[in-house]
């Protein structure tokens, strides 16, 4: 009697502890990962995709300081194509629409970089 009750209690505790994991495994599906639209031309980015995904903000900040503060706007050659150290002069030449590229991840991660308050993207200002 006593022994079976303690088994019962242990089972109940285990069930309670496992419930959230079980719910996430069997129950509601996780929100879908954001899917930024990649350039169709299939060109090579200045760094591998995995690195860009994690560290593009660091690269952009470094480019910004190089161009603005040190005057180093130099070219980066990747796969035969040369790029300037420039958000509007290089990045968005391939990743044209920020709504379909930048915003998709930024919105789902609730980050709001201030780049576009000044820099002009996509169709803005283009006749």
């Amino acid at each position, binding site marked *: 009697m006593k022994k079976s009750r303690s088994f019962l209690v242990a089972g109940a505790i285990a069930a309670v502890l496992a419930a959230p994991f079980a719910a996430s495994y069997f129950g509601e599906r996780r929100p879908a990962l954001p899917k930024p639209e990649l350039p169709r031309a299939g060109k090579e980015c200045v760094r591998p995709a995995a690195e860009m995904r994690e560290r593009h903000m660091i690269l952009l900040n470094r480019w*910004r300081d190089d161009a*603005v*503060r040190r*005057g180093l*706007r130099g070219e980066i050659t990747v796969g035969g194509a040369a790029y300037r150290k420039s958000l*509007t*002069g290089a990045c968005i030449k391939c990743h044209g629409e920020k709504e379909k590229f930048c915003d998709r991840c930024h919105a789902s991660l609730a980050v709001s970089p*201030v780049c576009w*308050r*000044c*820099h*002009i993207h996509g169709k*803005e*200002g*283009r*006749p």
Partner: protein
Amino acid sequence: MKTTRRDLLIKAARAGAVLLGGTAMYEIVSGSEALSRVRGRGARLAMAVDLPRCAAEGECDRCITACHRGHNVPRVPDELREVKWIWKEDMARLFPEMIDGPVNGELGRRKTVALCNHCAEPPCVRVCPTGATFKRENGTVMMDQHRCIGCRYCMAACPYGSRSFNWRDPREFLDPGALNPDYPTRTAGVVEKCDFCAERTDAGGVPLCAGACRAGALIFGDLNDRGSGIRSALAGRFAMRRKAELDTGPGVYYLL
């Protein structure tokens, strides 16, 4: 080789200078310390305004239009809150200390252009608490809008009124269809000014204003380069710089 009396005296004088004051003293005597302070380490980009050529164009404002279009400078109707990189001003107001001298009579009433002087010793750089405005090695006084916190110390420090504050979002005053997409706008709350078209001069070009002037009245170049156009433009002509007595070392010359 025989030591002449002259050589001996020169050597003795040099040794004496080193002994008396050390190398610092020697630098001051030879003038190299003062020169490197003014000249900078690399280039010293500057501009000369050829006043007769500018006046011959009459009511022209092509330099201002080219600059303000190219840099997305907003046209704010309120004069107290206007934003300007290059603007027209009466000679008498540019050179108030010279109205009894070279700038009297007709010349005082004539208008010409004013812009950031890209000083050798810029007071704006000295007061900026974040390093948002800084002096580049080529002599340009540059703005890094990313670091500007809008404190406006630089505006108080600049003796030339060359800086403007964005009281409102500048895009309110810009035609979205006429933006230059290759150059950013600014946001509300930052200071802006002429940067000698750093993105062009880094690529070896000339600033937009100098390129737009039909009369060739705006001569741009490197003062440390003996073969530059600005050196030959300045040679042998009387040139004035705004408030040179403040010892900021302005880099914009006005040729009489």
